[in-house]
């Protein structure tokens, strides 16, 4: 009996700080929602919620990969470019006559290869993630422009069955949202329970100690880098299905939003901590704020400023709490 209570308590305790952070985020999001429901009659409608969910569902898939990468102590500035590259490669192949499903798989595969290339530079050459992915961000963006010759690809000929991924819905719930929920649920579970992902925490928490525990940290870092780019590739394909077009400038600046969401959700830039659930809550908070600002008729020009301040506040509070603890 006692043991049972203990083991139940343990599950909550496991990421004690993280869960505090998540609970805090939920409270803030709910408070914002309640306040907004008084301020605007349009806020508490299924339509608005659907719009908000849609707006971050596809980015949410990228956030999953970014969070795992942050936990291992890395960062990826190239995700926006990779999302776009996956999109234009798949689009161009489709226009060249390939069926859209095969084209998409190739797009995702090419994204994984970009991740592998970055992983190579990080683990074999020994560069850090920041510099490597900064270079990749620029290079891959350039590749997008080369593939498209700078002009958007019009893909309205995509078959309806493919477009449905991005535009269709099941019982009034868009497939995009369903895919998002499935991806998040799978990776959240794996990150908490799978042995392979536990190694990600060890490596990010103290790489040296992980090596002294027989963990091949370079392998871990390599595969997490590949995972992050692959998920970005998946997101790119879904965007293509949603928009029926592939624009070579799409996704510029996306990486900052994604990193901000993960960090607000408790991922540390020093590695070793973070949860997918938290990162999604971070994303949700940013989305609720954006939606509120729009409904409140706040000028677009102010929105980025406010989002930046939220990021700063979240990280400061976290830093303060950690310092107090030690």
């Amino acid at each position, binding site marked *: 009996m006692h043991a049972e209570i203990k083991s139940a308590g343990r599950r909550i*305790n496991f990421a004690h700080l993280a869960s505090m952070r998540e609970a805090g985020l939920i409270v803030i999001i709910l408070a914002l929602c309640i306040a907004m429901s008084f301020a605007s009659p349009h806020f508490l409608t299924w339509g608005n919620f659907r719009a908000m969910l849609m707006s971050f569902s596809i980015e949410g898939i990228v956030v999953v990969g970014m969070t795992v990468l942050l936990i291992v102590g890395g960062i990826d500035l190239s995700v926006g470019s990779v999302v776009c590259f996956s999109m234009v490669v798949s689009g161009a192949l489709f226009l060249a006559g390939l069926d859209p499903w095969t084209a998409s798989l190739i797009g995702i595969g090419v994204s994984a290869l970009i991740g592998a290339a970055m992983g190579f530079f990080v683990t074999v050459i020994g560069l850090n993630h920041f510099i490597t992915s900064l270079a990749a961000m620029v290079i891959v963006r350039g590749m997008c422009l080369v593939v498209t010759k700078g002009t958007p690809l019009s893909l309205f000929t995509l078959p309806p069955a493919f477009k449905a991924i991005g535009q269709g819905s099941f019982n009034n719930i868009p497939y995009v949202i369903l895919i998002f929920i499935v991806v998040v649920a799978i990776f959240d579970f794996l990150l908490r329970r*799978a*042995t392979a992902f*536990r190694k990600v*925490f060890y490596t990010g*928490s103290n790489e040296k100690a992980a*090596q002294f525990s*027989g963990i*091949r940290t370079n392998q871990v870092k390599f595969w997490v880098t590949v995972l992050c780019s692959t998920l970005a590739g998946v997101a790119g394909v879904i965007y293509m299905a949603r928009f029926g077009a592939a624009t070579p400038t799409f996704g510029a600046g996306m990486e900052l939003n994604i990193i901000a969401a993960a960090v607000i959700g408790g991922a540390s830039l020093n590695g070793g901590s973070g949860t997918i659930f938290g990162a999604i809550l971070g994303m949700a908070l940013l989305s609720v704020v954006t939606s509120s600002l729009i409904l409140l008729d706040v000028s677009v020009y102010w929105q980025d400023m406010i989002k930046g301040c939220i990021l700063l506040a979240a990280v400061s509070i976290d830093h303060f709490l950690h310092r107090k603890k030690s």
Partner: protein
Amino acid sequence: MTQSPILEIRGLSKAFGPVKALNDVRFELRRGEIHALCGENGAGKSTLMNMIAGVLQPDEGDILIDGERVSIHSPAAAQRLGIALVHQEIALCQDATVAENIYMAAINSRRAPLMNFQKLYADAQKVMDLLAPIPVRTRVADLSISNQQLVEIAKALTLDCKVLMLDEPTAALTESEAQRLFSIVRGLRERGISVVYISHRMAEIFSLCDRVTVFRDGRYVATDAIAAVSPDDVVRKMVGREITQLYPDKLAPQEPGRLLLSVEGLSDGRRFADVDLQLRAGEILGIGGLIGAGRSEIAQTVCGLRPMISGTVALDGKQLRLRSYGDAVKAGLVYLSEDRKGSGVFLDLPIAANISALDLGRLTGRLGLLDRKAEDRQARELTGRLGVRMAGIEATVSTLSGGNQQKVAIAKQLSVSPKVIIMDEPTRGIDVGAKVEIHRLLRQLAGSGVGVIIISSELPELIGLCDRVLVVREGRIAGELAASELGEEAIIMLASGVQDSSIQRQAQNVA
């Protein structure tokens, strides 16, 4: 004598969380004396030094300089009061030159907008030459550890200080460098500078110092004139009991069991060569030698953590082919790093996760999922067996004291039921109580047939705990000492390789 003390400490206390590092201690430093401060690791010496140097703030008590009560709220304030501290750990800017490091404080307080490098180098070289001919334009990162330690000392010498505190300055120095340091310290005393000298080496203390103060477990024990006490008296005061009681009983001489680990002709091509080593079941083998002699490198190479260029490692009669440390762990050979926080534990992760890090495979069920219940069971069992004092197995390791962190690191090694366990400085920086527990545990392990190898820089530990000691000097095994031959002088002699008469004299003092 009626000299007024230059530095006086009254009723000082300091707690870190629930741990009382210092409890109502006093200390008095007279003008122009060299005063040794002794105590086991964790006795509170470094904490006191850090408070006098303004790094830490006391919870209670007074610090008096020249009879005036002062509050030293920052290292800069300590410098203004004429107090300089040479830390035990090297705290230099690795990418700056020796000269820039030596004059860091002076550069910081200068008003001139531009650096005068010519003068900087010339001045720095003058100071540096007092200690060793290290070119001051070298980057600190390119120096050996012992030379870095000398730079630290040179840095303190440039400060116009009245009180110089040296925290284990010779830990990383060779014998001749240490001798040069002693003559400089004596010279400082002639100039009226007062020196607080922290060391574990009785020989040094008795040849250099005027008085000695002993701390134990964060409390003041006694202050004596060196001439009035013997090294044995000091050691007895440090440990609070006879030193023989501090260590568990040794193996009876005829007992050693079968050959567990056999290393032959091991070389890594850089740090060490031609190392032979045999470990028998039931014994604790010590490896002594100076810091930087290659002890850790040998151990890490044996375990597959570093590459070897020649030699063989056989465990339990079977030749091992180690491509990685993982292979060694699977075979039953584990290594505990000397750098607990840097590479021993995951400070921000829970205790349970720390313990299971070494072999996740045994906790992994089908589908590659972690069996959390098994992980908990393992953590509870091992922390219970080692007596880890903690809030729960879910607490992060950072919440534990040094001794308990080390127990968690050891629990991690034990989780794989190793055949041979190599521990690098297993009790560095932990309190006496935990140390005794760890020693007992190691003896128990050895008794149960696990091979135990201890690398230690603490001579009493090697002598008190080990059944046999190998001494490494400059990458080679300099000699082996059986239980009956163990003694501080014998180890020092093998480790330094110098049959210098001064060492022998000091050694006789110890004996």
